[in-house]
């Protein structure tokens, strides 16, 4: 009597074989290093799409649970610019301001942020700056900036689409002058001869 396996068994075997193949391919990639981990070429399009999409959706999901921020003040924008100038500009540039030369060697490439406020809500920007982005080179700034400072950076990013290159350069001059004055004042106060 010929023996026919029941259809459910055939289906189960087919699925099992499929899953095993995927597992073996994954294992070969991991064990023998068959994946380009260099930063000297951009991601293949599928990897770029999948990683970026995952990041966007993860940020959206996390930031949706946060309460909305209070209104941003001009002082907050100014303070945010000073923080951006020191910590962010090397990688992200500004209006008319290039990124540091070595940044074009990064994969993925850190974006200019002139349009960031149109792309993300304040909560989402806060989440990205505070927690960083894994496998991109974006640090979690909660290690070095207070929550208030991260909000200042967000306030600045929200204001950034309104700045021309000239506005931005003026803001930079003003901030650096203020920092120099503050340093001079601190020095003269601590100087016992004066």
């Amino acid at each position: 009597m010929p023996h026919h396996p029941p259809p459910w068994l055939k289906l189960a075997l087919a699925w099992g074989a499929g899953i095993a193949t995927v597992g073996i391919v994954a294992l070969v990639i991991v064990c023998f290093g068959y994946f380009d981990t260099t930063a000297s070429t951009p991601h293949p399009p599928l990897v770029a799409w999948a990683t970026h999409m995952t990041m966007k959706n993860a940020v959206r999901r996390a930031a949706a649970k946060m309460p909305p921020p209070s209104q941003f003040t001009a002082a907050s924008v100014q303070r945010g610019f000073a923080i951006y100038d020191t910590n962010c500009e090397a990688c992200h540039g500004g209006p008319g301001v290039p990124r540091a030369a070595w940044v074009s060697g990064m994969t993925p490439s850190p974006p200019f942020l002139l349009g960031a406020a149109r792309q993300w809500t304040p909560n989402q920007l806060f989440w990205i700056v505070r927690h960083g982005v894994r496998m991109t080179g974006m640090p979690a700034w909660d290690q070095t900036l207070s929550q208030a400072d991260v909000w200042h950076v967000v306030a600045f990013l929200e204001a950034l689409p309104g700045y021309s290159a000239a506005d931005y350069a003026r803001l930079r001059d003003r901030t650096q002058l203020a920092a120099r004055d503050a340093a001079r004042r601190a020095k003269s106060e601590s100087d016992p001869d004066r």
Partner: protein
Amino acid sequence: MRLRRPLLALGAPVVVLLGCVQPPEAPAGPGVGDPERGAVLMVREACGACHEIPGIQEAEGQVGPPLHGVARRTIIAGVLPNTPDNMTRWLRDPQAVVPGNAMPNAGLSEQQARDMAAYLATLR
């Protein structure tokens, strides 16, 4: 060895697939732009953060003009006739062409700018 052979046989197609996504080494001479190298540079320089660029991954920026059909455009940045030399000049030194505009001087070499201009020339 007995175990390694089938593993390699399974791995080979993966290697071939991954090999396909590597950009080929293009030996373009001076003065001649290589569009493929230009496309890689556009990703590296994050042009897509500000511009929509067909064929460049994640290039969905809404800061500067979209670059669909830029090869058919008559004038670059409102001031320069759209020739390969002028596009190269604009990409290398946008601040000299239109002082105070938002596009930074990215520090591109002549050849890098030529390669990017060659890619843009394919966007008809």
